[in-house]
């Protein structure tokens, strides 16, 4: 059996389905229950996703540092491996061999559950990310609602990290982070609504299909796209919205007291969330995997890294804003603009 390599790269849906059907037939021929095979497939997908998360986060951290260096006329990491590519791997191994400290006075339950509660949403959202036609772990019919619901859970993890740490910096950082995340989730939801309206479905695959033929929603809904990018940047707590971990005033914010693996889990979740926000922006507004010549997966990753570059650019260009500006920007500007955009789109759909 030769592998249909070209077909697997360009249109993976059919060969993957054929493979699954063949495996099921072979499995059934031996009289084994098909649910066990399904479980094996699901385990393989989950293992692939956890591998992707790790490698991808290692790469994004290097990428972010290189862009920062480029903008500040520095060299950035360039010692470990070619172009310093293995720097983050070395850092991870170092963190893995550090002592995991549990300072005096912590609330053990809140302190220990926090990294879990922050990491699980980042992992679970990968279920509905469409990497290509047929390359989606589980195309839920409530896709976008699922993303909003699951990613909202990480606020609880951040709050419990702040509360459990027995540290004033952590507490204030955690509260600020929670207030910021809930404030910017509202304009984000309202920016997604016009896309759902135009598609008539919350399924991520259907939203990407609706943009086929280069009718990308970024052209039809430029205001919603910009609001989504701004709110998404605020959701992942990056500059100019990095008040929760403002180094000059709060040390490291909610993860001040964390060390070793628990700290790396927060870090991993943060960079995975950056990737996810960009990937969702690409799926909703930039046509997902669509593009000429190159395979869809490559297009999807290229576009996602383009959005990540935009967010890094914003990070190293704008100064950090004040807390009062942060909250007022969300409630007094983004929210009314997003609502007006929603109503205008609804009116335009009826009139045109």
């Amino acid at each position, binding site marked *: 059996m030769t592998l249909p390599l070209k077909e697997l790269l360009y249109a993976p849906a059919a060969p993957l389905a054929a493979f699954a059907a063949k495996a099921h037939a072979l499995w059934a021929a031996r009289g084994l229950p098909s649910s066990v095979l399904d479980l094996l497939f*699901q385990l393989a997908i989950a293992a692939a996703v956890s591998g992707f998360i790790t490698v991808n986060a290692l790469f994004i951290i290097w990428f972010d540092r290189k862009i920062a260096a480029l903008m500040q006329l520095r060299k950035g990491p360039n010692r470990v491996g070619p172009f310093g590519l293995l720097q983050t791997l070395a850092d991870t191994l170092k963190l893995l061999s550090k002592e995991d400290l549990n300072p*005096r006075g912590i609330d053990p339950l809140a302190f220990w559950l926090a990294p879990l509660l922050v990491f699980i949403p980042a992992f679970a959202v990968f279920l509905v990310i469409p990497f290509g036609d047929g390359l989606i772990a589980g195309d839920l019919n409530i896709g976008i609602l699922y993303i909003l619901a699951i990613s909202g859970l990480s606020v609880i993890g951040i709050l419990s990290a702040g509360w459990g740490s027995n540290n004033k910096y952590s507490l204030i950082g955690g509260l600020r982070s929670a207030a910021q995340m809930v404030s910017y989730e509202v304009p984000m*939801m309202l920016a997604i609504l016009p896309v759902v309206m135009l598609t008539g479905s919350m399924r991520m695959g259907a939203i990407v299909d609706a943009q086929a033929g280069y009718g990308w929603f970024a052209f039809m809904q430029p205001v919603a796209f910009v609001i989504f990018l701004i709110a998404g940047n605020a959701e992942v707590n990056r500059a100019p919205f990095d008040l929760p971990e403002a180094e000059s005033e709060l040390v490291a914010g909610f993860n001040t007291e964390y060390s070793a693996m628990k700290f790396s889990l927060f870090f991993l979740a943060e960079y995975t969330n950056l990737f996810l926000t960009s990937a969702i922006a690409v799926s909703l507004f930039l046509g997902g995997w669509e593009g000429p010549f190159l395979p869809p997966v490559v297009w999807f990753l290229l576009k996602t890294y383009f959005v990540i570059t935009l967010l890094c650019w914003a990070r190293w260009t704008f100064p950090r804003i004040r807390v009062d500006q942060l909250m007022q920007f969300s409630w007094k500007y983004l*929210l009314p603009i997003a609502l007006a955009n929603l109503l205008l789109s609804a009116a335009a759909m009826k009139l045109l």
Partner: protein
Amino acid sequence: MEYGTLLVFLAFAHIFVIGGVASNYLLMPRGKSAERLTTYECGLDPIGEARVRYSLRFYVFAVMYVVFAVEAAFLLPWAVVYGSLEGLAPFIEVLIFIAILLLGLAYAWKKGELKWD
């Protein structure tokens, strides 16, 4: 099938976290000094409780979030079927719904609840 994959994902995320922390505990050195367990406050001894009183503003924003999150939960199903509905009625209904919410936002704005000071 898809929700089964979700369950497997959640289980795998737990394994990922627990495995990571467990391997960390296998590899890590264990220091003796009691100083390393003190709260990090840039070298100074912390004064008083860490769980201090904080601004009531956080609570107000949380309440406003709940209002608008519930609103989005109502609007999402509307957005799904909006394209297939005939006539102006669905638009006018949502106009009224959003107008009531905007009234609430305007009230909070006027009361100065959106200001942070």
